[in-house]
């Protein structure tokens, strides 16, 4: 599998560290209720299909990126820098 790093271009999967679903970027407010925090900390979907997840370009440029890919077909649709995805999510 090759991932399109927004900074370095297309790179081999072994240069990346896998973190997990990109919901880690949507941190609840500190005073959110327990159910919301429980969901954020512990609960993950296991989608058969399209998913967005966080990867760290550890052996490359050191950027955190959000990769949009399909877990069934292994197709990779694209990637954005996590900082950009976070800003976009925050802007709604």
């Amino acid at each position, binding site marked *: 599998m090759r991932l399109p790093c927004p*900074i*370095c*271009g*297309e*790179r*081999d999967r*072994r*240069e990346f560290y896998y973190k997990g679903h990109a919901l880690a970027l949507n941190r609840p407010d500190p005073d959110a209720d327990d159910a919301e925090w429980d969901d954020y900390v512990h609960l993950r979907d296991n989608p058969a299909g399209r998913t967005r997840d966080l990867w760290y*370009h*550890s*052996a*490359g*440029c*050191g*950027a955190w990126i959000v990769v949009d890919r399909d877990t069934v077909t292994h197709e990779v649709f694209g990637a954005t820098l996590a900082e950009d995805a976070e800003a976009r999510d925050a802007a709604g």
Partner: protein
Amino acid sequence: MIDLDLTDPLAGVSPLQAPGVTLMVAGLGPLTLILPFRGKEDAVGAALGAELPAPGRSVQDGDRRITWFGKEAWLVSGAAVEADLSGLAAVTDQSDGWVAATLDGPAAREVLARLTPLDLRPTAFPVGAAARSELGHMPAAFIRTGEDRFAVMTFRSMAGTFWHELADAVRGVAARRGG
């Protein structure tokens, strides 16, 4: 005060010559890592008297080489950084933290193809290109310094494995080429 001697992690290693490629230890001179503070890239470039190269690029200017070295990071090699960058960037002297080797010859790319997943074809990685990637299982940096010439760097603590992997790949390629 204790007097510390700077030792060479690849001392006693001889250049390896094979058909199509020569592997040599490379002296990089002083190494300074520069991490400009947010929005200060242009000011850092002005203080250094050079434009900071774009991601994936490395520029040689006299003795000094400036290499893009990761997200918002640049490495200055070959000459000490005299400019005052206080307030502009985080600066660390990494001169004793890295080892480097040069692969020179038409088979240089073939040697590296055994060790790194990088696309090193001239269209994807032309002269002046730079990348952080892996060499075997080691984090490494690559610069194409000429048509058939590459500089490869890794952490000093991995010098032995680094040389072993490179020398092994050189011998393997030489054997396949009938050397």
